[in-house]
């Protein structure tokens, strides 16, 4: 089976009309007609992850995020970049091929990135979650205790919180990656991967600082982009196995980049 045939099967099974104009969900590098020896699903095509996939004999990488350090994987300004050369040479030399599934994963039911994110932060019942699962209710606890549970459960080293640790919280709004949801009056805690800190479409950080100053029980937890969408790529691999039977499929995590 070729990488192109794998992608055709994914498109057929994903259950949503394919957006041909997506700049994200395309082949990034390698020959689509390469015979697939094994598939690695991953949150992001890091160089380190590519080496581990190759060592495991997996030559097709299905990645949720970019390969060349910008969202569009635009390589126009990178052709003379030594790291770009090194990474592309490694991929081509080892007969690997990289394909990204981002937009369509988020449009799918369930959105496995959110399914995985809910499981990794320890909120049960998210097996069928879509990209915007709505307000979730957890047993009332303090924001500090909840944040500690999220850190333990997700293993995020560089997790960041804003808000009053003593605030009583129970209403949670969660989003994957950069799609950190906007805080709302009826929500206590927003969980996301990352978000521009200020001067964006909505600045949760300043909003929560001010809400806390007004005595409102609110908090934000930023898990980190990799951590927030990592676990779901294992679920995505499990889903691939329901219609791809003849090729090994393995989840190869991207490492959290922070010390």
């Amino acid at each position, binding site marked *: 089976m070729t990488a192109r045939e794998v992608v055709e099967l994914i498109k057929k099974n994903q259950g949503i009309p394919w957006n041909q104009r997506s700049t994200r969900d395309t082949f990034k590098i390698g020959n689509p007609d390469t015979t697939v020896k094994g598939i690695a699903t991953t949150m*992001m095509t*890091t*160089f*380190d992850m590519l*080496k581990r996939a190759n060592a495991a004999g997996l030559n097709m990488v299905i990645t949720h*995020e*970019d390969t060349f*350090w*910008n*969202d569009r994987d635009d390589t126009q*300004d*990178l052709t003379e*970049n*030594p*790291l770009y050369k*090194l*990474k592309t040479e490694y991929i081509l030399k080892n007969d690997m091929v990289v394909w990204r599934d981002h937009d369509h994963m988020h449009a799918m039911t369930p959105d496995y990135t959110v399914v995985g994110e809910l499981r990794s932060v320890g909120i049960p019942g998210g097996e069928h979650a879509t990209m915007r699962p709505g307000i979730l209710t957890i047993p009332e606890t303090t924001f*500090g205790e909840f*944040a*500690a549970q999220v*850190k333990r459960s997700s293993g995020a080293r*560089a*997790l*960041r*919180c*804003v808000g009053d*640790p003593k605030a009583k919280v129970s209403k949670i709004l969660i989003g994957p*990656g*950069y799609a950190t949801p*906007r*805080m709302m*009056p009826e929500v206590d805690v927003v969980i996301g*991967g*990352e978000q*521009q*800190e*200020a*001067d*964006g*479409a*909505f*600045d*949760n*950080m*300043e*909003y929560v*600082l*001010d*809400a806390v*100053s*007004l005595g*409102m029980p609110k908090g934000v937890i*930023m898990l*980190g*982009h*990799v951590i927030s969408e990592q676990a779901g790529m294992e679920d995505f691999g499990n889903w691939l196995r329901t219609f791809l039977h003849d090729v090994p499929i393995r989840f190869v995590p991207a*490492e959290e*980049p*922070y*010390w």
Partner: protein
Amino acid sequence: MRRADVTRRRFTLLVGMAGVAPVAGAGPLTAESVVQRIQARLGGDWPETGPDGFKAGDAATAVKGIATTAMATLDVLKQAAKANANLILTYEPTFYSRADGHGPGGFGAGDPVVQAKRQFIEKSGLVVFRLRDHWQARKENEMVTGLASALGWRAHRVNNKDAVYEIPPASAEATVAAIRSRLNLRAGLRAAGDRKATVRRVLLFPGSMTPATMWQRYSEVDMIVAGEVREWENTHYAADMFTAGEKRALVTIGRVVSEEPGMRACAEWLRTVVKEVPAKWIGVGDPYWRPA
């Protein structure tokens, strides 16, 4: 073309006004006249569509004192009111989005936090003006030199036109520990790359760094200290460089934190522009914490 003409005329007018401003007793020093003086000193166009401008309060208010800040949070505004500083110059938005309460986006005029903040500003007689683009565009970019001073590196600048500093060599880990302690940081500081690298050349980049800048500059230095980057772009690049064996590190300290020293420098500069009332800087601090 038409706007350019108007702007030039307005600019001449502003310069003229700055010239007569020291005439004492000609009336109260209003927020508008302070801003006009700042505009004249900083120069350039001040288009209505830009981020810089009045965000809240009455521009005709008599100014008793000026506060500069990286971000006019409610806590900052409370401190300003207490210190009798009723004109606040902020680098970042006040109303939680780039539109800053004037257009779409953000949290809406009916939001309880937005309403409470507006009420506090009104009740306290404060005026908030955003001063970002023009302060940053200044030839003596104090957003950079301010951060260097806060880190104790001001004297180590390699070239006055650039933001590279050559500091006494230390490991990336030790350099990160020094940054953390100098800037009093908590969870807002995050580092990626080679923690064992020897750091001598550092690029300072307050604010938000694009991938293109990262690709262009990272290999020139041992460490980049930026305000914020996108993890799946720049941080990913630093991680891949580490895998490739490059002995470098990327440190992000938080966008607002990275902008604080530059706004502290702005307060000092203001004292040379507005002598009638005191100007002080009010810090926000690292907003992030991490559970054990």
